[in-house]
């Protein structure tokens, strides 16, 4: 992984890191990839990928009002809100 790849990765993950820290971050990530890469030698071409250990079933619920409107509680948990809205910095100039 080089510095350009790391910058792209940091942007995708929406994480900032001082450029001075980049070599150390690359070293740590590379160290983990060295561990992970041990699986690359396995020939698993005949296996289907498994994304969940158990068989999943669809769960549906009745379309009825369950009176779970907790608007105030949810807004109270936000770092900043105004009336019925979450507040964020201006998006469109």
């Amino acid at each position, binding site marked *: 992984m080089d510095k350009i790849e790391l910058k792209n990765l940091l942007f995708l993950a929406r*994480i900032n890191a001082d450029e001075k820290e980049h070599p150390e971050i690359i070293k740590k990530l590379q160290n*983990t990839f060295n561990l992970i890469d041990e699986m690359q030698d*396995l020939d698993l071409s005949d296996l289907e990928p498994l994304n969940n*250990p*158990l068989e999943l*079933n669809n769960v549906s619920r009745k379309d009825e009002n369950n009176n779970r409107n907790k608007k105030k509680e949810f807004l109270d948990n*936000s770092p900043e809100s105004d009336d019925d809205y*979450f507040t964020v910095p201006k*998006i469109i100039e």
Partner: protein
Amino acid sequence: MNFKDQREKFRSKAISAKEAVKEAMQKIKNDNLNIFINDFETQALKQADYIDNNFEKFKNTPLSGVPIAHKDIFCTNGLKTTCGSKMLENFVPPYDSTVIKNCNEAGSIMVAKTNMDEFAMGSSNETSYFGAVSNPWNSDLVPGGSSGGAAACVAADITSISTGTDTGGSIRQPAALCGVTGLKPTYGLVSRWGMIAFCSSMDQAGPFSRDAFGCAALLDAMASYDEKDSTCSKRIEKNFESLLTENFGSLKIGVIKNIDSLGINTDVMQSYETSKSVLTGLGHKLKEVDFSELSSGICSYYVIAPAECSSNLSRFDGVKYGYRASNQKDISNLYMETRSEGFGDEVKKRILIGTHVLSAGFYDAYYLQAQKVRRMIKNKFESIFKDVDLIFMPTTLDQAFEKNRKDSDPNRMYKEDLLTIPANLAGLPAISFPNGFKNSLPVGGQFVGNYFSEDLLLATTHKIQEVTDWHKMTP
């Protein structure tokens, strides 16, 4: 005091729930191991009053009148839930998780929330924003993680039961390092609703107690079908406590061929060998099984878990709840700074790994390959369980280790989970229990069972604990 005695004291009216809570609160206030993030004395005393005033209703519930500490990953209505992170330092959920609701209904009283690795990412409880937890047996050592606080709480005899979660070994590894019993149920047995997500396809909540008896009673309370978690299983109801004394007869127990080549230390191996004689002494038969694929599990885990973590933790953006970086002029900087300041280094590292393995160009080589390894591990377990009832192995490679080891060799820390991860990849149940004592520290052994065989895991461990004393040792 062990769970059974504690509950019996309430049932026989030798002690009220309120007195039990006061005793636990005193121990919490004297804690110098940093086991807890928050305690809830006022609410706990109120709940204890309620239980005492409704004695008839609670006298036969699974956890009647027993104080409990919950891992700070379970949402608690109106009470802070931090997940060990600065990101959620002041988060107050407007609802109870299903685990909390079930434990409340079963008659337990939450006295505190326990410390944990940040977002359950760690094997030493050192990544917590609220500081490392110390091991009750030796405060220079780690208690394991991520449910380090929960294991230490029971080991230090503060409460007789506690809850934890296990994504790659986060119940079993700290149970082993602290000398208590901890069970990771089959994926889907316990609802994940209201449990803050790390790796959704592996996260599973489970019980800690000194012995299998306490784990069985707590699991009876925790497990329930929950339509709010679409991965929750509609299985046949079992009463694990009453099944503890079930006679499952002579079992065929699988022991892994050449397991000593995996880097397990000599003391742990010695305890393992001693336990094998205990098993044969109880009339079980040991059968060597080949599981050469076992060590590939760790590669798969460190792709899949970070991938799901990068997705799950994308919700923390400083808008709707949690930490927000101050004085940000535009939305992009708000996201970037909030996440950079709110997450700790280990969490950020795993988000970056997850983002990388899911990105175009790397998806097939990493994510898809890891899912195939996951299939390979599951297939191998299925083939082994055609021939044996349980698999027995050590829980960890080492006993409790010194703090700050992660800085010198992070991959060694990841490898701590080598023996616990395979059960998570396959979604199988597994129990860790104290099976030896070396260097003045406990050692843990674990059984892995077939799907929904928690009754067999608990009953087999219970039988061992009837003829051994390792689970009775206290720091």
